[in-house]
Structure formats: structure tokens, C-alpha cells
């Protein structure tokens, strides 16, 4: 039903001809303080009862001028700001930025040879953070659908990862661990033991999650055939990461455009197959993340196996870093999708321009399309399946 039809649909009460009862669309603000929008996202929705007609996201509540700050801070200093983008996967953001700067240096003629040891450390830590980020996505998704217990299970396992990170770099959320040319500290031996222990335990926990939530009848009923994002739309809207793969597009930068040493690993790219309903529905997007956690465990195991007993953690870098003039766009696969940094250097100690292409920002666009005609409850489920982090949407 269009808006016009609705506003014309009037009813009159007997004996009250002068004041006709008018049926109209309901305009509601969902957010910026709303538990299901996963941060300070404001959605302006028009609904006819429970049916959502239009969804318009309004952004900017968490805007911190991160890109502009890059123009006033040195190359190293900016690493700290990349933490604050996707704060649930700060390691991956760090790596994306460091990788971009390193590649720009290589492209402009400076030799940057990342030691083998540091490369392995980078992969291990990044994949651990991928698991941590997907755990939050899994847990909060349960929360969106009213199942509170999986959230605590997910946080319990994430806690183990955060403990590892704390031992590695002292921080639990904002790590700034990756550095241009390597990583800042070595993984201490006890943290290494913890990682191995975690890898042993975690696959069993995944089985538990699947039994608790993934295969739950109500859960499947809520998600299957809801929020269907077809292949073409997903590509057209620039969706990346699990959102894109959930629609059945076999595209993962770790395999298709490997950076670091990702070309050496043997892993499968998880894609949605429409097992429970239509290809690209909420359940597919959710399940891709569950499968990716399994693959991340595989990657970490291989990385630990190929890791040299000891080695340098940093490449030889000049004390004050200056990048020769040039321009580069480097994208890496963060948990939410493709994290891209477009850096222009004018040869100084800071970037001339540093544009960030953040995955959730592009994934959010598709909500406007997906939300049309859904019920309010499904809208919450769809937002959850996109796994938005406002820190990187607003930057």
C-alpha cells in the first residue's frame, strides 16, 4: 500500500461527520538511543502498524573527524585513531592502515621488508580479533532476537581472547598493536600457550552455539526468508564481508587479493547457501560468521605451525618516518568487510589525505532497501545481521 492510499483511507464515526477519523502512517525515531541499533545509529522509520514502510538512517552522532585528524598527526600517531574505527576489531583496522602505509612506501621506492616472524604474529592476532568480533556479532544477534544467554556465552569466549590481547599488548579494546613495519611487541610465551589452549577449546564451543541458537527452531523461523539481499543488489550497494558472502558471492580478500602472507594459508571462504530459506537472507548472513570463526581457527593453527621459533618483530624503519609523495588505495578484509585506506602522501611526516572506506558504512546503505515492507521485529533482526559498528560508520 502506498502512502497516498493510506492517507486517503479515512473512516467516519456515526454522528461525528465533521471530524473524520484519519488513518495515517506512524513516524517513529528508532535511536539514537535504542538497544537494537548497536550504537548511536538513528533510523527514521514510517510504519503502518507493525509494517515498516520506509527506513532512513541518519548518521553523524559518533563523528570524530578521524579522517581530518590523519592530516595533522604523524604516520605512527594515526594508528591510535584507527583503533577507534571498528572498536570491536581494532587489530584488523590497525593492520589495514599499517599495510596501506607500508605498501605506499614500497610503491614509492622505500624498502620495507616485514620479517617472517612478524607476519605470522600479525595473522594470528588479526584472526583472533576476527573471532572476537564475530562473537560479539553472534551474541548481540541473539540479544536482538530475545535470546539473552548466547550473549553471555559469546562474551565468555571473547574474554579469553581479550586476556590474550592484554598479555600481548596490555590493552583490551584499543590495542594499537600493529606498527608500520611489523608489530610493537612479541607474543609472550604464556600468551602463546593460551592461544593454543583457546584453539583447542573453541571449536567445541562453536558446536554449543550452533545447538543453542543456530539450529533453534524459533531462531530459524525468525531469520529464514527475511531481509533477503540478492547477489546483484549486494554487489551494487558495495556490500562486503559476511554481508556480501551471505548473498552467495564467493569473494574474500584474504584469498582473492591476499596481503601479508595470506596467500600461504589453506582455508575455505564461507558463503551463504540458502540452507534454511532464500539465499542471502538474515540466517545466511548470520551463519557465514559462524563458519568464518571455524576457518579463522584453521588459519591460526597454520600460522602457529609455520611460525619461526624466533625472529624480528619489526622491519628496519627510520626513526622519523617520512613517506615519499604518492597515492595508494589498499583494502584488507576486516571482520565486517573490506577496510580500505586511500592515502595520499606529499612527502611529509603526515598524510596529505587519508580516506577510509569502512565496511559497515557501505553495508548500512542496503538497510534502506531491506527494511521496506518488513515488520519492526524483522528490522531489528536485519540491522543485527548487517553487524554494524557505528565507530567505523561515522569515523
Amino acid at each position, binding site marked *: 500500500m502506498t502512502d497516498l492510499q493510506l492517507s486517503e483511507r479515512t473512516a467516519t464515526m456515526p454522528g461525528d461527520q465533521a471530524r473524520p477519523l484519519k488513518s495515517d502512517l506512524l513516524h517513529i525515531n528508532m535511536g539514537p538511543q535504542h538497544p537494537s541499533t548497536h550504537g548511536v545509529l538513528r533510523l527514521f522509520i514510517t510504519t503502518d502498524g507493525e509494517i515498516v514502510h520506509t527506513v532512513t538512517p541518519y548518521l553523524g552522532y559518533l563523528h570524530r573527524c578521524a579522517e581530518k585528524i590523519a592530516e595533522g598527526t604523524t604516520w605512527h600517531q594515526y594508528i591510535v585513531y584507527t583503533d577507534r574505527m571498528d572498536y570491536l576489531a581494532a587489530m584488523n583496522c590497525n593492520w589495514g592502515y599499517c599495510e596501506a602505509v607500508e605498501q605506499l612506501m614500497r610503491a614509492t621506492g622505500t624498502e620495507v621488508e616485514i620479517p617472517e616472524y612478524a607476519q605470522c604474529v600479525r595473522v594470528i592476532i588479526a584472526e583472533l580479533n576476527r573471532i572476537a568480533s564475530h562473537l560479539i556479532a553472534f551474541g548481540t544477534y541473539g540479544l536482538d*532476537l530475545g535470546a539473552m544467554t548466547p550473549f553471555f*556465552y559469546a562474551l565468555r569466549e571473547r574474554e579469553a581472547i581479550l586476556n590474550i590481547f592484554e598479555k600481548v599488548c596490555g590493552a583490551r579494546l584499543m590495542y594499537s598493536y600493529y606498527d608500520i613495519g611489523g608489530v610493537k611487541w612479541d607474543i609472550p610465551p604464556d600468551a602463546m600457550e593460551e592461544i593454543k589452549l583457546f584453539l583447542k577449546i573453541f571449536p567445541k564451543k562453536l558446536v554449543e552455539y550452533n545447538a543453542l541458537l543456530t539450529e533453534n527452531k524459533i531462531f530459524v523461523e525468525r531469520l529464514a526468508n527475511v531481509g533477503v539481499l540478492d547477489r546483484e543488489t549486494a554487489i551494487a550497494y558495495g556490500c562486503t564481508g559476511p554481508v556480501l558472502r551471505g548473498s552467495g558471492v564467493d569473494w574474500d580478500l584474504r584469498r582473492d587479493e591476499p596481503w601479508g602472507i595470506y596467500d600461504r594459508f589453506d582455508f575455505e571462504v564461507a558463503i551463504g547457501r540458502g540452507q534454511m530459506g532464500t539465499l542471502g537472507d538474515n540466517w545466511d548472513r548470520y551463519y557465514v560468521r559462524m563458519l568464518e570463526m571455524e576457518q579463522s581457527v584453521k588459519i591460526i593453527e597454520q600460522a602457529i605451525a609455520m611460525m619461526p621459533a624466533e625472529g624480528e618483530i619489526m622491519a628496519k624503519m627510520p626513526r622519523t618516518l617520512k613517506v615519499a609523495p604518492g597515492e595508494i588505495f589498499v583494502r584488507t578484509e576486516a571482520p565486517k568487510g573490506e577496510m580500505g585506506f586511500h592515502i595520499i602522501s606529499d612527502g611529509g611526516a603526515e598524510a596529505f589525505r587519508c580516506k577510509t572506506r569502512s565496511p559497515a558504512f557501505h553495508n548500512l546503505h542496503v538497510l534502506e532497501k531491506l527494511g521496506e515492507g518488513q515488520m519492526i521485529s524483522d528490522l*531489528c533482526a536485519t540491522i543485527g545481521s548487517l553487524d554494524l559498528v557505528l565507530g567505523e560508520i561515522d569515523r
Partner: protein
Amino acid sequence: MDALREWLATTPMAQGMDPELLTGLAMLTFASLVLVGVALAAMIFIWCERKIAGYMQSRYGPMYTGRFHGWLQSIADGVKLLLKEDIWPANADKLLFRIGPLLVFTGAFLGYAVLPFSPTWVGANLDIGLLYAFAASSLVVTGVLAAGWGSNNKWSLFGAMRGAAQVVSYEIPLGLAVLPIVMSVGTLNLSQLIIAQQGYIWNWHVFNPIFFFAFFLYLISSLAEVNRLPFDLPETESELVSGYHTEYTGMKFAFFFLGEYADMFVVSAIAVTVFLGGWYTGIPAVDNFVHPAVVFIGKSVLLVMVQIWLRWTLPRLRVDQLMFVCWKVFIPATLGLVFLYGLSRVILR
């Protein structure tokens, strides 16, 4: 209540008192006892729920208030709610906003009048006790609607509309599910329903194959009736931000809270009465040693724990799925059971 009246008659205070005044006094005493009992029980349930939830989620739950496993937590919360500022939303409908929580609590509280805790501990041994209990608990929905409308908040209104649709729908399978037993026993009197299940455990209605399905359907419908997960759509803290009681603070909010837990006990107690042998332990020899009220309350509490267990395990349904389950599955199924039982009565006669 009669027992209470007789006991009051023996006290020195009642000597020479007008019998009608005495009855009134007994009623008042009973009502205050139930009120205190309900409030206390709700507090204990809330504490239990938090501990159980904690246990299920590998955490502790309340641990500090009152030293031993935070047993005073509910009381501390109650005191906090009492001391909170009473906030009225701008342009709220004053009357509806005020009576909403009262209606919800009253609806839940009224049900206690007919609950047969033991052969003698019955507030009002009504012949239409079952009907009365269902009627009383449907008063809750009026309160929910009043609260949602009076709050002047679109999200609250959503919750209230959902609540009205849900409770009104689920009352039908709830009533139909107990109908085969009413047909079997031939009474709506709750005490009579229990007495029909006297003797060994297999005399309980739940062990009759047809009644077993009725029990199952009753249990699920009762979850919807008291707005508990997986049917807590009027509240849905993640979608509607607590739905109809978003705008409430302090004691008004506490009344919603108490009402919910009081109602949980009522529907459980009716399930125990109708299906699970009421105050009988299932072994006649043991019945003489255990106080019937202990058995009755124990069984009801067990069912409340089942509700809590389900809440912390399941995700919630969507509103259209909820309606689908009610109108297209539960109502035909319960009607089918009524028909099947009637048929079996005719054939086996």
C-alpha cells in the same frame, strides 16, 4: 477462608461480635495475607530468576546484598523503587497512566482468591473457580492497554497493542485446553478438580494421553498469557525498549513487575490444579505426612521455574508468527482435543 473465620471466632477479640462483621474481618485478613504473600513470593521469584539466569549464563547473579548469595537483592531493589522519583511523561493521560499498573497487579492478584492451596486453605471456593481465574487474569490486558495508551509514547503503544492482541488470542486456547478435563470431572470448582485426581500418581490428569496434549498446549499458551519469553512481545526490550512500561518508574514500575511474577504463579497453580494432581503427592501413604499446601506450592513453584528456564533459553517469536501459532495451530488443536475427548466418552460409555 472458612477455616480462617472459625479460627478468628475463637479469639477473645471476636467474642460477641456480629457474625457478618466477623466474616468481613476474615476476608480482610485473608486479603492482606495474600497480598503480603504475593509480594513476598514475587520477590523470591525475582531473586530465583536472577540466580537461575546467572547459573545458566555462567555467572553468579546477585552476590553482595545480604552476604549470602545476595538474598536481600529483591528487597533492596524494592526499596530503591520506592525511593525513586515518580516521573510523568509530558502529555500523559493522567488517569490511564495511573490505573494501568494498578489494573495489571489487581488482575494478577484476583486470581489468588480461588487458588486451592489445601482442602481448607481456599479464599473463595467458587463453583466457577476456573472461569473466574481466567476472567481475572484477562483483566491484566486492560491495564497493559491503559499503560501503553496513557504513556503517550509510540513504542509503548506498540507494546500495548501487541499485548492486547496476544493476550486476547491466547485466552482461547488456554480455556479450551482445560475444557476436556472439565468435561471429564464435570465441574469448574478447582478443589473438586483436584479431588478427582486423588490416589496414585497415574490418576493425575496429565497421564491421560489426551489430557497430556492439553497440558502441553496449556503450558505454552500460559506463557503467552503472562507475556513471558518466547512470547514476551509486549515487552521486547530489544525492539520496543520494554514496550508498555517504558515510561514507568518507581512504584508504578514495581507494580508491573510484581504483577508479572504474581501472574506466573497463578497460571502455574492452575496447571497444577487441573493437570498435576493439586495438593496430592501421588502416593496416598505420603499424603498424610506432608501438608497439602506445601505440595501444592512446591509443584507450582516448579512450574514457575520451568517458565524461567524457558525464558533464558529461547529467542522470541515475531508478532505474526505468534498469531499464526495461536489461531492456526493451538485453537484447532485444542478444539480437536475437546472433540476427541467427547468422542472417546461417547464410544467408551
